[in-house]
């Protein structure tokens, strides 16, 4: 790697990703900061690339953050989250049922069909299922999990799986559907969830989403400059506003990792990362 160019890894979950990072590259270049990016088709490859020294910064999903942190720890190294979007903080997921259904708690879903997003989606699969499990349901025996797997490897960044689960709920193909809170509002506005047709059975406590992850060997100066430039970005600037609107934020915030506790519990409980970590010489938990 060129020592003076900060290289970021991101997952191409949508074609707009190119527009976003090209925009950041130009924004940084105009401020004399050499920056480039590499796109991966899935988060696992991105995390492996960062551990192998191919990139300095990973734009990681919450699950990819845990993958990076655990794989780094397994190799005697460390990872930290340097920044995140304001909209990455304090999200919740909801388990939604049809308004006329009799169920009042997650435990009532025993024997029922539960629709979720992609298997690697923190918000629409892992975290909601953690809550079902913690409510006393055996996910293998007590409920039928119907996964709407769109674009596995992208950690649920694509909205499609959740929308399919919501549609299945309305059509009666599942009894409950799991989704992130924002999509509940969006699907209601889109009419996918007709007004008054659904009820929120359960809402999780808040958790956090993506972050910019760096490893302990990342070049300090460029990383500090990167973070400094991020925090100097203002939504009031037209060129920034375009990028922020695409990336869905109003301001960058300092990275924090306390908000990943629910997801940590979920991957530990379900052993989600064990095969991948074993394959890469790491360990789970």
């Amino acid at each position, binding site marked *: 790697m060129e020592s003076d160019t900060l290289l970021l890894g991101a997952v191409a979950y949508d074609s707009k990703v190119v527009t976003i990072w090209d925009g950041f590259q130009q924004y940084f270049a105009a401020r004399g900061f050499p920056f480039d990016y590499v796109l991966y088709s899935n988060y696992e490859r991105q995390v492996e690339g960062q551990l192998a020294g191919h990139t300095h910064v990973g734009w990681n999903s919450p699950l990819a953050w845990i993958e990076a942190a655990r794989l780094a720890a397994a190799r005697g190294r460390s990872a930290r989250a340097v920044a995140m979007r304001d909209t990455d903080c304090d999200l*919740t997921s909801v388990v939604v049922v049809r308004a006329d259904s009799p169920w009042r708690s997650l435990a009532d879903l025993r024997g029922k069909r539960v629709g979720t997003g992609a298997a690697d989606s923190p918000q629409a699969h892992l975290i909601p299922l953690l809550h079902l499990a913690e409510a006393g349901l055996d996910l293998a025996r007590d409920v039928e999990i119907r996964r709407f797997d769109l674009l596995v490897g992208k950690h649920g960044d694509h909205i499609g799986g959740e929308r399919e689960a919501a549609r299945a709920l309305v059509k009666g193909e599942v009894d409950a559907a799991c989704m992130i809170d924002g999509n509940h509002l969006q699907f209601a506005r889109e009419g996918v969830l007709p007004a008054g047709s659904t009820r929120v059975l359960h809402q999780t406590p808040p958790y956090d989403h993506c972050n910019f992850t760096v490893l302990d060997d990342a070049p300090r100066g460029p990383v500090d400059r990167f973070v400094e430039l991020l925090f100097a970005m203002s939504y009031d600037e037209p060129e920034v506003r*375009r990028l922020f609107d695409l990336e869905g934020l*109003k301001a960058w915030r300092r990275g924090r990792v306390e908000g990943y506790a629910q997801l940590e519990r979920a991957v530990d409980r379900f052993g989600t990362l064990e095969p991948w970590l074993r394959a890469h010489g790491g360990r789970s938990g």
Partner: protein
Amino acid sequence: MSEPRAAEPRAGPTAVDLGHLGLDRGGHLLLKRALAGVAVGERLAVRGRDPHLALHLAVWCRAQGHEFAPAVEADPADLVGHVTRRTDQAGRWRGAERAGDARAAGDAVASHPSARWGLAARGATVEAGGPAFDFPLGDRRTVWADEAARLYEQAAAAQWDPATAIAWSEPFVLADEVEDAVVQVMTYLVENETAALLVPARFLAQLHPHFREVMQLLAVQTADEARHIEVFTRRALLRRDQLGLSTVGGQLSLKTLVDEPDFALASFLLSVLGEGSFLSLLWFLHRNAPDPVTAEVARLAAQDEARHVAFGLAHLCRHAGEEPALRARLAAAVERRHDALRHTAGLNEEVFDALVLLAAGSWQPEAIERGHAAVVDLTRDMDEGRRRRLRRLGFTDGEAEALSSLHTRNFM
């Protein structure tokens, strides 16, 4: 929506009641209206009964950059929570620019409207940072004429319905060869009107929309030509299954119009000289038509063409007033076109003969003689019209005579 707000919020309510309305059914409008009166850092109490309101308020606030604190047990039952305003919508409008004056005319029209005003309505406030559009016709001097507004209004008011404006089923009897002559003339008209449609249509797509009245006029001009093409085709097919002949000479002449990339030159060649000559031709057809349908389609088309000529003259007069060297460019364009067409046949014999026969109305030698004389008068009338318009553009009598004589023999 409304005007961008100034940074200073008006004194407003510190509570809003959404009633039964959720944010999935438009409740956010009430919320935004109430927040407009709340200063950054201040709180707004939100009441409502929608069961998903607290969930959706948290989502909405996160996306908008505000803070949401859900109600606690001690709060009144219908209080859903408090929204603390964290962002100022006015920030979005910092650096915004008004895209000229909505009612502008004359020199108040922007001389070089910004490419970033894009498609915005003239007089709208345009957010900074928008895309720059490529409108090659973005210079007022080249395209503008105050007359465009009046001509557009006239055009909009004068639109006629081809289905009802012409008595298509009115009975008439024509000799076969006279009918053939009408079909040949219609074939020629369709070909020429197609050029008259494509040329303004091409420039329309290059024109900065700031010049709204010009854009509207060019649009209606192309719509006029579409109707002309329709009625001429319909007249040709009234008694026949096929149209007449299209010649190399005719198409070569029209191709020089279609290929002309310069708006002023194309407008001069097409509207002032070409459509100007066509005005004479259409009135000739109206006066000499052997049947009422031909007479009427010619009259309706002529009325429209008069507006096209008027706009061409108006913007070129203004342009020449601001750029005296324009006249030399216009003259050179006529000479260039003449040279390019020097070795072509000009008006095809089929069209010329058809015009004579159409005006004659029969094969009687006296009638043919009368028809021939009428066509000779027509070419003289066209020449006089061209010279008159050239003089209006500031050419001397001698220049006008010379340039008119170089105009394509294909008329358009």
